[in-house]
């Protein structure tokens, strides 16, 4: 029995990946999470230049629904600075997926090219952040732009290219199709849902950016639905990475059965002891596989389609 899984040509020791933006802004925290036993880590999205992100409050929990909302808005030190941290990770054999963003093809290209000499496990294109004016979701809701960006970048690196999709669209299949036609190696879904919280005493939106993205347990049924739909349409064409609201070990299998080859966990790792959570999830994945006679993750990917 093995917990290993494969996404395209990337072998992972287990199907758990740290989602972008959570515990991902420094090499040290990424390494810490990797050493806790996760299969791979995705860095916080990095762009062409350093950027402070949106004003605070930019993230808080929503405990009654076991979720969080954030409007960090792609705060990052710029790829030139972050390159040094990526190098440390790669030197320490951390399976590192680098999330990148840009405001157009050129910016995306600049970042990717600026890093593509490094043996990066994969690039993840953030075409789905809802918290910026000109990057992320703004691009990722237009199939033509998506295709153009992916096509352009595909030629410029040997590393696999993953495309992270937003659920905030009428038809995710259309966007996915564009990304596949552009030549990407895996689809990642979902990023956060467009959301907002207002304080009724001050009568102001709480987030400094007003609007934000909802993550955590509340969005799991939406993520499952998206992966299920994507697998139904493209399951034979491209591997899927499921993300959104994974908080329990059961959720990992729910995504795999929906069609994911691996999963990413974000919000649920924002706890006092992410190490314990990772260990707990892994242990229970193992137990479940044993009890259910599952030899291999690959055997059950998309298992809910029949």
């Amino acid at each position: 029995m093995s917990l290993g899984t494969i996404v395209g040509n990337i072998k992972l020791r287990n199907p758990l990946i740290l989602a972008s933006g959570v515990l991902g802004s420094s090499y040290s925290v990424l390494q810490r999470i990797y050493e806790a036993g996760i299969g791979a880590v995705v860095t916080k999205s990095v762009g062409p230049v350093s950027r402070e992100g949106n004003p605070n409050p930019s993230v808080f929990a929503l405990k009654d629904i076991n979720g969080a909302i954030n409007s960090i808005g792609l705060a990052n030190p710029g790829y030139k600075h972050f390159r040094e941290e990526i190098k440390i990770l790669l030197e320490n054999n951390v399976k590192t997926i680098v999330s990148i963003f840009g405001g157009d093809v050129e910016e995306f290209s600049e970042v990717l090219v600026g890093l593509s000499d490094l043996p990066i496990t994969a690039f993840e294109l953030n075409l789905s952040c809802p918290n910026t004016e000109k990057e992320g979701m703004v691009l990722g809701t237009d199939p033509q732009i998506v295709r153009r960006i992916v096509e352009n970048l595909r030629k410029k690196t040997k590393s696999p290219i993953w495309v992270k999709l937003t659920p905030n669209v009428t038809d995710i299949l259309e966007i996915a199709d564009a990304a596949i036609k552009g030549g990407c190696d895996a689809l990642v879904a979902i990023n956060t849902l467009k959301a907002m919280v207002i304080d009724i005493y001050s009568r102001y939106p709480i987030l400094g950016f007003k609007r934000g993205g909802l993550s955590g347990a509340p969005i799991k049924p939406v993520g499952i639905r998206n992966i299920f739909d994507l697998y139904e349409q493209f399951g034979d064409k491209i591997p899927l990475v499921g993300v959104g609201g994974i908080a329990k070990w059961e959720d990992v299998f729910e995504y795999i059965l929906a069609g994911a080859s691996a999963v990413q966990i974000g919000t649920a790792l924002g706890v006092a002891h992410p190490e314990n959570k990772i260990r707990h999830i892994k242990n229970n994945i193992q137990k479940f596989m044993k009890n259910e006679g599952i030899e291999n993750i690959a055997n059950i990917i998309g298992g809910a389609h029949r």
Partner: protein
Amino acid sequence: MSRKITSFDSQPIMGKIIRIEDECEDTKNFFVEMPEKIEGVKAGQFVMLWIPVVDEYPIGVAGFKDEILELGIAKMGVGTEALFNKQIGERVGIRGFYGKPFKPLENVNHLLLGGGFGMTPLKLLINTLKSRNRGDKIHVFEGARTKNKLMYLDFLQNLHDKGEIKFHVCTDDGSWGYKGFPTVALEEVLQEDSQQSVIYVAGPERMMKVVFEIGKKYQNVKDMQMSLADRYMRCGFGLCSACTVDPTGWRICVDGPVFNKEQLEQITDFGEYIRLATGEKKRI
């Protein structure tokens, strides 16, 4: 109005400013009444303070009694200034209580050393130690540039006069207490009293680093606990990683802000580097 706080570590809940005191130059004490019963706080923990439309930032807790939160705030920039402009009766958002607190040992001398707004968690720590009422000696060392910058001067002097603590105060310009750094008095105490001691520090990180190096020289220093509160934070509960330190990847907000000696040894960033809001590392 009855409003049950099921979870305080969630979206900000609105407290009402019911008292404002001038503490010292550019520093005020704000007393914020929380709308309903919330769980107790430990010295060293902090809240995220939301000034609607302006900013949200971490603030240590100086006191919490009868659902009234005491915060000691130094004016730094736009966010703290916006608070200074608030009137009694206005509301601010609070979420917390976040972070690992000081963990005072027993049967030791307690040596508390602080500067600037670092004094706020130490005030709560003093009250905690007093209420344990174990007869351990409590020394408090405070330093500032000048007299007007000394926080809690009356409070501490008063405790000193009552014999509840030993208060060692100093200023860079000699305008109050002895002229010099608080480490001078600290070393004196460490040399004179061979009893095992724990040093608790909160203040500018360069200063803490100096204290740390001094403390390491003394056999009778059983532990050092320092609050790394000079770090940029967003979430406050361990999600965003804005506040991590290298090379351990510890998050100041949940793995700290208070770290003990053994941990501090491992944090190479301590006293050397912080991270900006962008995530870039910057020399302190």
